[in-house]
């Protein structure tokens, strides 16, 4: 894996984790769950691996 791809993967994981934190803030204290950060990280990896999808 090239360095630029590793950087992109790390950036996507971090972006996913930030999204997870934002979800936690949005849903409030009662629904606080650190799992959302893990979920966000998985989203980042999934988008890196599968992103691109079908071309028209």
């Amino acid at each position, binding site marked *: 894996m090239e360095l630029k791809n590793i950087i992109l993967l790390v950036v996507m994981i971090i972006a996913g984790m930030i*999204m*997870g934190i934002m979800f936690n803030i*949005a849903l*409030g204290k009662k*629904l606080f769950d650190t799992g959302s950060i893990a979920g966000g990280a998985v989203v980042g990896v999934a988008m890196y691996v*599968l992103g691109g*999808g079908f*071309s*028209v």
Partner: protein
Amino acid sequence: MDKELKKGYVSLILFLVILSIAIIVKPKITIQVILVALAVIIMIIGQAKIQDLIAGLILHPIMAMTAGFLIAGAMGLAGGFDVLLILLRGWAEWELGGITIFGYIGVGVFLVNIPTIMPMPCGRILAAAVIPGVYLYGIEVAAVYGITYNSSLPASDPTNLKYLIILSTFLSAFIVNAAASCGPSPLGGVGGIGEGNMGVPIGTSGKSQACGIMIATGVCALVIALVVKPLPYA
């Protein structure tokens, strides 16, 4: 007059006249039937084939959305959404060494991002097909945290409002992804936005754009939950 131009005049006049009559007379049949019949007549006049319409991308978004709705309907009838909820529940409650890894919110975060993770040629396909699942999952999450909608109380009641916020947050985050999730193409979509103008190979910036959409999903959740707040419907 040019033959093609004549066909154009006839089609346009026919369209305007029939539509005007339909508005004035208000027939008992629905406007969709009239429009479909009109479309067929205009296709005959213009000697257009279905392939011509698809090639011109005229039918593409409509067909994509129709396909999505058909899948959603079929899945609903076949119990697909019930199974989806069971699977999501299992994932949310999955433990590793006694610790819940994702929880309901983590799985919800994944669910709303599915359209961007698996971009279709048209974002409408997954949007229409999966949105009932997202809605049901939102209700499930609220129920897990002991939040239910009490219709005997006003929508502004704190518990009811919390319930609406949960649903709106999941749905709006999903919609952001669905709207942004058209697959790479010269027309746009993830990986294609602006690339036609830049002249770079299609899909070059797809992952970077997906990254931006992830952040936008979180921002959307924040804005909907904290700034907009759902409008009471009851």
